[in-house]
């Protein structure tokens, strides 16, 4: 199987911290695979995702050791904007991911940056709104949406860029039961489409569809052996 992500002997320490939050992490992600990462708060799950998508060290600083490759290319040799064309990340808080006045503008932002043709953008917006079940909200102000709807739009804004790898950093955290159900359905549909995904999650009920569950504990990433 093609390895989309390869992480070898990854060590990471935040600036000013005495210990490594990631202490020799090894990880692979194959095409079409869905991997869930669980672990206690502060165990370094989000840090790990941030390293994979380049937020660390491009935005947040720290001492990093080891290699992270996407399609065999070291991310240290790639620009953040270049990584963003291959990896899409959805964060926990939808409020800090939406910044446009309407849903349509929000979704169009990514493809516009990637120089996608106007006609193609229109077609993609229509398609992606259908994927997340928000077709009726195309011209709605993003501030008027519920938490779950905002998270769906944040996901749509990333999906519309058609990245090959999707990262989800505790996307269920701020949602109610209905919101969780809708997001789960979207994630399951993405899995059926063959998308490669890494999900960081607390709640085991939200990751039932994952191919592998891994646990990040004491800086090490290992196969999850049950609760």
């Amino acid at each position, binding site marked *: 199987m093609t390895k989309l992500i390869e992480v070898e002997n990854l060590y990471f320490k935040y600036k000013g911290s005495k210990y490594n939050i990631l202490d020799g992490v090894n990880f692979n992600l194959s095409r079409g695979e869905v991997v869930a990462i669980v672990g206690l708060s502060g165990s370094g799950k989000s840090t790990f995702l941030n390293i994979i998508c380049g937020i660390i060290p491009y935005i947040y600083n720290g001492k990093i050791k080891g290699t992270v490759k996407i399609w065999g290319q070291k991310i240290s040799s790639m620009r*953040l904007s270049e990584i*963003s064309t291959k990896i899409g990340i959805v964060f926990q808080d939808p*409020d800090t*991911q939406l910044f446009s006045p309407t849903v349509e503008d929000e979704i169009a932002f990514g493809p*516009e940056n*990637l*120089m996608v043709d106007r006609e193609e953008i229109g077609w993609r917006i229509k398609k992606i709104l259908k994927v997340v079940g928000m077709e009726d909200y195309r011209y709605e102000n993003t501030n008027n949406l519920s938490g779950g709807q905002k998270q769906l739009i944040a996901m749509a804004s990333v999906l519309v*860029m058609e990245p090959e790898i999707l990262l989800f950093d505790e996307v269920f955290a701020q949602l109610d039961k209905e919101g969780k159900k809708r997001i789960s359905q979207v994630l399951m549909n993405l899995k059926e489409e063959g998308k490669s995904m890494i999900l960081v999650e607390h709640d085991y009920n939200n990751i039932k569809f994952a191919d592998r569950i891994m646990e990040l504990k004491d800086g090490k990433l290992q196969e999850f052996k049950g609760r």
Partner: protein
Amino acid sequence: MRIEEIRIDPRTKLIIVLCLSTLGIVFKDIISLVKILLTTIFISICFHVDLMGSIKKLKSLLYILIVITLAQSIFSSDGNPLVTIGKVTFLTTEGLYKGLEFIFRMMIIIFSATILTTSSSREIVQGFVQWGLPYEMAFMVAIGIRFLPILTEEIKDSLIAIQLRGIELDKIPIKKRIHVYSYLFTPIVLGTISKAERLSIAIEMRGFRAYDSRTSYMVLKMSILDYIIIFMSIVTTIIFYIVY
């Protein structure tokens, strides 16, 4: 007449605002300023601006305006005295005139700016971009404007948090209240910076500045009506300036 139903280009609105604010700044006599203010209000109504809503939102700003007006009136010593206590003159006809002039001028600028609220921030950004302004700069301004309500929200949250700890801000003396506000400053600033940082990460991860150029899904196109409004606005502004 409800112009907003016809879809006026945001660039047309920007020109109207520019003309009205220029007139508001250039003219110094109260009669002209009142005429410009009435014209501004009329145009705002034509664009179906929620004037009362805007006034409510700007309530705190209006108090500052009134204080500045009063200060200007008090410190202007020219003209006939209107309010005198002992040997000190607190208000003169000239002071009152200057104060009114200031308040009318500010109202013209504020009411004319409300016309822009009938377009979305994305439309205004696109207007600037099609005028040749780099997208990054226009986007930066739009994000800056978007951040004002976030800052307000942060302040409100901090005030609620402090009140839930049993401090009744309305009932404590002003000196102590200022002291409490100084405690709030750090968490508000840090909270806002943290939100700004997360927002900028989300923007970066959506390919912002991935290439030297970018496409735009939204394209503004001016209609004949837009050209007529722009022509009329500029001509009227020039005539108004020459005649008065």
